[in-house]
């Protein structure tokens, strides 16, 4: 150190001092309130949007049945289990008939007894007819005798009365006979009714389907209307989709849908809107639509399977819009209740209110009013901008492998 002349030392010290001051100036300008805000810009361009509606839903069966008894009773047997494919009319379960069979036997016996009564009534009619014939012959004969004054009028009257009685007795017997016939009809009807009830304890499949739940086992008591088994029609699976009301513009039957089931996030299934429900949910502020699968997924283990109640994400494709000015939605800002963008004019940001149209799921939005094609608009900024703030335009604020928005 001693060897160096003083001038060299002074120069070195001077350089060090300048370096320090330069570092301070650099630090002061790069950070703090003096530093410019880094932004990225884009120019407003015309283009078309492919808007879409996104919603989530659950897989449901359009046709499902709850099979249960019409009166309270005990389950006697359940013949099918969850997952069984059943045909229409197949016996699924049986309720305990309790005394129905005995009452049928009693009715059968009553019917047999009614037949016997009918036979007896028939015999009584025959007997009454024989008596009436005899009484009629006697009366005829006595009339002839009375005409020749062989017998007293009193004797004749007695014979005539006998005939009238015999007539009446026949009518009684005939009435008895038809009464027994009516009795038989009644008994038969009662038996048929009981037979119906007996048949009703057999729970039959109302249509072709698959058993989805077995809610009661043999021996358990169920009330009227409580299901023993539930069936669905596997060909009728669809997605009950819920869409936020604010994002549901354009929701209509027939729109093409892309369905992603939670169990198969890599596979997108095709479908379309089968129905848009008239009633929206006022509490969750959602609209409800049913999305039918293009090819019905089977509930059993197959290549494309869906289980009822599974969560699904649905994307509905809306028709392409007309050409309009487009902006990324990251550039849209809200300032004091106004929606607008930061437009760069002569290197300074200025807030321009805009009116927005539809937007697409990839984050682009139509600008209807407030900008011209080719305007420079701030997309990303390091912090909230203010009118006339110092900005520095850069290509990207964050280094990303992806580069653009996903």
């Amino acid at each position, binding site marked *: *150190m001693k060897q160096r002349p*003083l001038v060299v*030392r*002074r120069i*070195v*010290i001077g350089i060090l001092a300048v370096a*320090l*001051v330069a*570092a*301070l100036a650099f*630090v*002061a300008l*790069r*950070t*703090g*309130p*003096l530093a410019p805000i880094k932004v990225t810009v884009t120019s407003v361009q015309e283009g078309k949007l492919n808007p879409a509606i*996104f*919603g*989530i839903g659950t897989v449901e069966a359009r046709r499902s049945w709850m099979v249960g008894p019409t009166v309270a009773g005990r389950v006697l047997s359940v013949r099918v289990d969850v997952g069984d494919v059943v045909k229409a009319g197949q016996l699924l379960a049986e309720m305990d008939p309790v005394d129905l069979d005995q009452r049928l036997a009693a009715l059968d016996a009553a019917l047999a007894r009614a037949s016997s009564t009918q036979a007896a009534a028939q015999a009584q009619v025959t007997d009454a007819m024989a008596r009436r014939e005899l009484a009629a012959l006697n009366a005829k004969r006595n009339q002839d005798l009375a005409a020749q004054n062989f017998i007293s009028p009193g004797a004749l009257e007695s014979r005539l009365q006998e005939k009238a009685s015999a007539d009446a007795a026949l009518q009684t017997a005939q009435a008895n006979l038809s009464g027994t016939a009516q009795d038989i009809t009644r008994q038969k009807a009662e038996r048929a009714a009981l037979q119906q009830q007996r048949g009703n304890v057999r729970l039959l499949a109302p249509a072709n389907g698959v058993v989805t739940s077995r809610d009661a086992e043999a021996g358990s*008591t169920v*009330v009227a*209307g*409580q*299901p023993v088994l539930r069936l669905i029609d596997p060909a009728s699976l669809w997605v009950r989709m819920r*869409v*936020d009301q*604010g*994002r549901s513009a354009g929701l209509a039957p027939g729109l093409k849908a892309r369905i992603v089931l939670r169990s198969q996030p890599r596979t997108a299934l095709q479908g379309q809107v089968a129905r848009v429900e008239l009633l929206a949910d006022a*509490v*969750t502020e959602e609209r409800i639509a049913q999305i039918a699968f293009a090819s019905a997924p089977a509930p059993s283990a197959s290549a494309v399977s869906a289980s009822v109640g599974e969560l699904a*994400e649905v994307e509905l494709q809306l028709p392409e819009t007309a050409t309009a000015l487009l902006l*990324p*939605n*990251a550039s*849209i*800002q*809200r300032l*004091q*209740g106004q929606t607008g963008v930061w437009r760069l004019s002569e290197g300074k940001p200025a807030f321009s209110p805009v009116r927005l149209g539809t*937007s*697409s*799921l*990839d*984050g682009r939005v139509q600008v209807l009013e407030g900008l011209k094609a080719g305007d420079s608009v701030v*997309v*990303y*900024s*390091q*912090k*909230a*901008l203010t009118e006339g703030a110092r900005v520095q335009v850069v290509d*990207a*604020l*964050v280094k*990303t*492998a*992806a580069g653009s*928005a*996903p």
Partner: protein
Amino acid sequence: MISLAGRDIAHSWGKFVLTGMGLGLLIGVTLTMAGVYRGMVDDAHALLNNSGADLWVVQKDTQGPYAESSSLKDDVVRSVRGMPGVAQAANVTYFTMQVQVADGDDTRAMVVGTESGQSGEPGYLVAGRQITRGHYEAVADVKTGFALGERIRIRRHDYTVVGLTQRMVSSGGDPMVFIALKDAQEAQFLKDNDAIQNDRTRTATNTAFNRPGVPGLLDAVQALQTSSHSVNAVLVQLAPGFGAEQVAEPIRRWKHLQVFTRAGMEEILVAKLIATSAKQIGMFLVILAIVSAAIVAFIIYTMTLGKIREIAVLKLIGTRNITIASMILQQALGLGLIGFIVGKVAATIWAPVFPKFVLLLTQDAFTGLIVTLAICALASTLAIRTALKVDPAAAIG
């Protein structure tokens, strides 16, 4: 007249510069500590700024949603919208949790549920786009370390990161993750599957809810238990021409809700929520400043003591006292200046590396500069006193 100070520094400039650097690093630490304190306060302000609200409507008798938990039904927002002076009102939920990335690592983040196009949404992005789908998309603060397109797990659902933002932090400095309100409601109040199963079993064993004669009652009760329509706060923006208190008062009085204005919220966050930790840092800052001042004083004093023979020689050849005093003062101030510049540069360089935000204010730097120079000047008087009292004979003896 030649500069004695300059000559002396040129004589042993290596030692001088190294001393200045060491001093600078110490000052840098002090400035950084001030930055940490400012950063904490700024985190609280950033939280309020980012929410974009003028009023916070929360559960009655609570100081939510940041300082205490608050729970409102999500249809309260409709009745608030109907109040005079309310331009916009939006539901919002906040909860702090560990957010998992696909490979299993988790990051502490504050998950914010916002309504699309309403206040509470991130005001600006640095990459990607805002949320467009009603479900399962997220915008994250860059501090979370998430990348665009990454899949993150909140409770049982996977969310795709579609946008990145910056300086969106909770009052505790946790970075925010923004998701759609409905997802957030579900995530916040959704229990894990085991708990749901247990709850179902518990309800099923309750004979009041599981009556044999009323099929469907149990299902209805179960469904009721798992649905959630609660939010933590309603963010209100004022219509032009209305004062905050003027709008807040009727909501407090007639809607029976607690309403905080911007000033009230700042009071809660700065004076209550971060008060203890801020005081902790502030205390440390004070001690650090005192210790730094003492070290600066001792360095200058010992530096002078090291030159005591040379000063004695100067006195011997008849140098005036004022010349010696100004030499020591100039050196002390020079040392202080170098120290300050090195400290400021060092603090600026290492501040972004800190996990939480460190805010270096220019006014803090100015205060630091003035205090440093004052301490240097003060310390030099001590050294000057010693130097002036030295016996010229010491140069020979």
